[in-house]
């Protein structure tokens, strides 16, 4: 049960009810952002953040650094395999 989609918070529509428009490839929908406002932040501070949207709620902030770490690791994996293959004298197909 867990269809969650990354989107970017575009603008706050209701500060009191913590509602904001989220943008997914140009599609906009009002969502609740209570779960992604961190301590000491206001609703406005979340504008521009990437979040995971599930049933009309922004459930979690997406950590761009962590995403990059995962991608770098996977990229390095491909390169390491290519090197290992080259050492064995085989051409790696990537």
């Amino acid at each position, binding site marked *: 049960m*867990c269809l969650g989609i990354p989107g970017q918070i575009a603008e706050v529509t209701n500060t009191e009810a913590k509602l904001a428009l989220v943008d*997914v490839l140009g599609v906009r*929908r009002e969502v609740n952002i209570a779960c992604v406002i961190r301590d000491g932040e206001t609703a406005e501070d979340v504008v521009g953040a990437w979040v995971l949207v599930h049933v009309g*709620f922004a459930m979690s902030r997406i950590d*761009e650094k962590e995403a990059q770490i995962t991608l770098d690791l996977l990229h390095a994996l*491909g390169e390491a395999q290519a090197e290992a293959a080259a050492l064995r004298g085989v051409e790696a197909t*990537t």
Partner: protein
Amino acid sequence: MKFVDEFRDPSTAKALLREVTACLDQLGATEQNPVQVMEVCGGHTHSIFRYALKDLVPKSLEFVHGPGCPVCVLPMGRVDDCIAIAQRPEVIFTTFGDAMRVPGSKLSLLQARANGADVRMVYSPLDALSLAQQHPDREVVFFGLGFETTMPSTAMTVLEAKRRGLKNFSLFCNHITIVPTIKAVLDSPGMRIDGFIGPGHVAMVTGSAPFRFIAERYHRPLVISGFEPNDILQSLWMVLRQLLEKRPRVENQYARLVDPDGNRVGMQAIAEVFELREFFEWRGLGSIDHSGVRMRAPYAAFDAERKFTVPNAKIADPKSCQCGEVIKGVLKPQQCKVFGKACTPRTPLGALMVSSEGACAAYYQYSTHAVEEVA
């Protein structure tokens, strides 16, 4: 699409598949004696079929499709209760689209709508709240279902209904919790699962702590995983490496989203509104202790179960249904006696044929049964 397309890169998938294959070889896995990895969440099952990952991994790896489709595991009696509420003339019954086709003992919500019940699909519980404000003369009931991922949204919707002083909004609560269910699978006789791909979006809410017992008590690896194909392949690789190291633990592949401590606001809302039920009935698995939640007494005014009398009848699963064996990984979907015969997506008998996230429905829809059908 940012944070999606990067994790669907085919060349990365190939690199991961080579690592997965190497691990399986080192583990001595064979087609006859495969490593069995359960993906707990229906969302993972969907990705595995949509991207045909099942066919890309070596035959010495078997995906076992877990109980993580809350639509599938909803027992018939609860669907009957929904329909009883929906058929009341004052009620606007709101639901996620997923639940529309789930059969009760006589009708599904889709059929109840055709028979005149006011059943409306919504994208969010917030939309049900808006309907309640637009129709002060009607009773708007929201069909709350799902695991911990979805619980904060319904809990916060109830809190918002209270804040707005709405008297005509209530929740029919069918939320279930994943941990007791994994435990029930692990405790069942004949269980053969070697490791778990953990539910990323549940963990986003709960954090990773609730899953630790799987490593500590049952000595099985669990990797909390994202839902894109490369997320799943990477998680699979991490599970296999744990098996090689013989050091089972909880790892987090989905660090871009999952904070090990979970989401504080979401968990607070859950704790405020919900409490554990002593047991909850699951289609295909029977009664599991502490596997469901109900609304706490201070929110009784928003509890559809208290507001409306429902039949609350327990309806046994069909005898021929072997969903329980499939969920535990003892049987593959097509090994079930009724798969594709008495039980098809058009006429589902068992839980796993009900929703497109169900393992049997996915097998049926995405596999080549149609060849025989038309040839």
